[in-house]
């Protein structure tokens, strides 16, 4: 379950999105984040989607309380956002991803 895969090697940016099964909020968040990656970010960004009901141990490890939660895992230190994340520009800003935004984007 990933989009914009970086071919082999460690990606420059790793985002992990924790969602709950097929809830409306989660579907909205997946759509929003995938859309954001496609539209704004380059191949340097890898996105992993984790369903907490299928991978509770991973949720435990990351101490996830709320879903959807988006974590910028790489580069460290990690940063977290909670919510349905439907404002891509704010997400990019809050996760500090401005430098990865594709240059073709109109200013």
């Amino acid at each position, binding site marked *: 379950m990933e989009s914009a895969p970086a071919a082999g090697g460690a990606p420059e940016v790793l985002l992990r999105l924790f969602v*709950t099964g097929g809830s409306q909020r989660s579907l909205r968040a997946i759509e929003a984040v995938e859309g954001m990656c496609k539209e704004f970010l380059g191949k340097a960004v890898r996105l992993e989607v984790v369903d907490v009901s299928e991978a509770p141990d991973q*949720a435990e490890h990351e101490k*996830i*309380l*709320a879903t959807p939660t988006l974590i910028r895992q790489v580069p460290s230190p990690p940063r977290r956002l909670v*919510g349905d994340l439907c*404002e891509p520009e704010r997400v990019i800003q809050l996760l500090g991803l401005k430098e990865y935004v594709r240059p073709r984007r109109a200013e």
Partner: protein
Amino acid sequence: MSSSRELKRLKTYIPGFDLISNGGLPAGRTTLVSGGPGSAKTILAGQFLAEGIKHANQAGCFVTFEEKPDDIRRNLSSLGWEIAKWEAEGKWVFVDGSLHPKDEPVTIGDYDLGGLMARIDNAVRKTGAKRVSLDSIGAMLIQFGRPTVIRRELYRVAWQLRDMNVTSIITAEHAGHAEAPVEEYVTDNVIILRNTLEDEKRRRTLEILKFRGASHLRGEFPFTISEDSGIILLPLSSIELRQKSSDKRITSGIAELDNMCGGGFYRDSVVLISGATGTGKTLTATGFLAALGQDERGLLFAFEESRDQLYRNALGWGVDFPKLEGAGRLRIVCEYPEVAAPEDHLLRIKKHIEEFQPTRVAVDSLSALERIATPRTFREFVLALTSYLKDKQIAGLFTSTTPSLLGGSTVTEAHISSVTDSIILLRYVEAFGEMRRGIAVLKMRGSQHDRSIREYTIDSQGMHVGEPFRSISGILSGAFTHSTSSELQTLEHLFDRTDAEDA
């Protein structure tokens, strides 16, 4: 007992709680525990799990939002709970919902607590937990800052816990006397913890506000936190009147007093000795303990005098306390009332009784404990002690000091006279320019007794009871009239004791 429509209960094994809740928490449901800061919410949440592990081998899951699991493990271990060991055995599991301040999440848009639910579900599945505690909502609200969302989500958490067939506790902050927080409308079952300052004394209480579809006792019940076992509720008023009563008599240590009582005290009765200072209360207690039968043991709680003083007094009346102690037949516990709260005194007294297994217990004096308690707490203390003694079929003798030399009653008596089985009054009597002493049996439950007021004297052999005062009335009120006075005067003086004394 309980009707078939009543909810099933889960016995908590928290001392006293199952009694006031008529059998425990509603099984498979969520109960909200609401309380102010320092009201022992976290202890209750932890104890709910600990008692389940200790007494019913039920695993538990502790979800913490405020403190780190490390801190909780350490803090609660000081109450004697081996949390680390239980964790290793798979009986206790933490779900850590606490956050580093720098981790504070930024929210964009709507969210739910799906992560939390998945983790609780996972932990419960892995350990087979039957009990879950969540501590506390307040910390969650601060983390996410969106009360409406959190409340909606907690409602869902409660439903999910119900589906998982676990019995759970969620704690919440309750600021003072403000109206009930919204959380209270969300759960069917609400318990309030209070930690209040009453007449300069700390008082902890637990109240079951509601259990939907399940009965429970109403009102606030005081509790104490014992250093080695946590919360202990003192469900005082609930244990009255269930004692079996014995018709076996024992001697009071004074033959004439036995006669006045119709043949001695009952073996499982509690007697109150009331009198002003110097009327012989400690002597009566001493005699009571010295009159131990063959297989009897006596326990004396002295709140007014030191051990040396007690020894000396007793020896003055021909009773050798050190010898009785040496023979293992007597234990004397001397304490200042001020060293502990009434609840703690009660615990200590019970502990001594458990250890020593006495057949007679004397408390000299009960009124000394009144100094450290509010009237309500004091009454509860006396009730609890009395019930406990009767339950154990121990003969109890409490002394109570009246503040005025002549006549009078104390708050002590007003509070506890209905609780004790017998009341014996020791009074000064002014007769023709002389101070004499009179003894009367005011009440003797379940038996005939001498209704006269008799004169008594005290010498090196102890107390001697003589003839009734024939020509003096008004002794109990302290407003004496001699036989020449008219009935009318007596009646008048009955109700203006203080004036009569001042006159």
